[in-house]
């Protein structure tokens, strides 16, 4: 909707975003508008700043020492660096999925409710927790595989199931944005296809931003693409356009496989 307010149309907006690891500038004056409910892929050669940019979305970079950030990141209309923004609330709203599935070494059930237990000061009734677990596991297409063994450890699942569990773990907290950092790099072809199908089913309900080295995956899964190079955003646009008629020479050379 072209007449929507920017905060309604875009889940994530950055303006003049810069980030340094010590003296090294990893992000340079990044301006992007990431549309709500779509899947946006970040592509570019290694070291271009994709993962750094992704980690800005839930302020994960702050966990690393010697990081300086300037500029603005607005998520759902709020500047996430405002002093009155709670980091806990931000990370409920903006969930993250990592390269290697990282379920906790506790039961499948407890993995799913872990976030709820951490974020809810008063515990929820068991029946409510059960509902949330079933709903989250159904949403990630894992319920039928694990419904009879919810008390078994999440770490005992296949890598594909573990990654689905990691996504399910975010859902009871009702995130609006899901950041995925190479979510299929540890999976085989079948697992990759399963996660891509899952992403497709989540389209529209969540804003998904995915970092991927796999250009075919970026093409297949995303609605929009952002091409980054040496810490800068070179080009952003609808995926089919970016791969068919890139506006910038650097993008064209990258998507044609001339470098990277």
């Amino acid at each position, binding site marked *: 909707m072209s007449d929507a307010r920017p905060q309604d149309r875009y889940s994530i907006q950055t303006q003049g975003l810069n980030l340094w690891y010590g003296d090294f500038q990893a992000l340079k004056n990044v301006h992007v508008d990431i549309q709500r409910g779509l899947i946006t892929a970040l592509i570019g050669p290694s070291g271009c700043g994709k993962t750094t940019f992704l980690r800005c979305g839930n302020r994960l970079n702050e966990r690393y020492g010697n990081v300086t950030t300037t500029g603005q990141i607005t998520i759902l209309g709020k500047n996430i660096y405002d002093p009155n923004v709670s980091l806990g609330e931000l990370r409920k709203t903006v969930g993250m999925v990592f390269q290697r599935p990282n379920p906790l070494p506790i039961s499948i059930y407890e993995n799913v409710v872990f976030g709820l237990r951490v974020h809810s000061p008063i515990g929820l009734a068991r029946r409510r927790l059960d509902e949330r677990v079933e709903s989250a596991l159904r949403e990630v297409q894992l319920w039928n595989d694990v419904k009879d063994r919810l008390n078994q450890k999440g770490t005992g699942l296949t890598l594909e199931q573990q990654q689905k569990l990691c996504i399910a773990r975010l859902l009871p907290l009702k995130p609006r944005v899901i950041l995925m950092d190479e979510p299929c790099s540890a999976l085989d072809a079948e697992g990759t*296809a399963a996660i891509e*199908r899952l992403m*497709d089913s989540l389209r529209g309900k969540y804003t998904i931003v995915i970092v991927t080295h796999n250009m*075919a995956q970026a*093409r*297949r899964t995303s609605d929009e693409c952002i091409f980054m190079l040496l810490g800068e955003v070179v080009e952003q646009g609808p*995926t*089919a356009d970016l*791969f*068919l008629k890139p506006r910038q020479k650097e993008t064209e050379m990258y998507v044609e496989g001339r470098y990277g």
Partner: protein
Amino acid sequence: MKKFEQELATVKQQVMEMGEVAESMVGWASAALVGRDRALIQKVQASERKLDQYQLDIDSEAIRLITVYAPIANDLRFLLMVARINSELERIGDQALNNSEYVLQLLSAPPAQPLRDISRMSEVTRGMVHDALQAFHDEDTDKAQQVLTADDEVDALNAQTFRDLLTDKNVSLDSVNQSMTLILLARSLERIADHATNICEEVIYLVKGEDIRHQT
């Protein structure tokens, strides 16, 4: 079914819908002449924009699917042929529109010329368009081959119509316009049959990977 396969099936469905519109346009233009029914001419003219929109949508989707999935082998041949068949159908629609204009001219005066072989040509041509689409839908090379054979009959009928009208000793100054229009109409039908033939050659390439164009 995988997402890509679903998307390919959707494009195929769009091509079939476009084909139905094109085939109807051909049929309406012919029926308007035989039945002297001007309302059918309006239907042909009203459908042309719809056909153009199908062409744009199908082209754009085929390009998107090639871009996004980088298909190979059968999927690549399918999408390349979809783009070509799309173009044939649009041209069939253009010819049908021309036919409707010829028919309109013919209906503006009492019939001075018998329709000769034009009714038969219309029937065979429309059947060829229908069968070509069915061959595409079923990926049926036997049916495609039958359409290629049927084209010979249309070519012969066209030549016959041309000869008959050119050698008609009863042609008067009043009827020469009608004779010319009938020749143009026959020629346009023959072109529609050629487009149906092209679709069948494209179906054979799609199924077998064999390019049989320009072999006769």
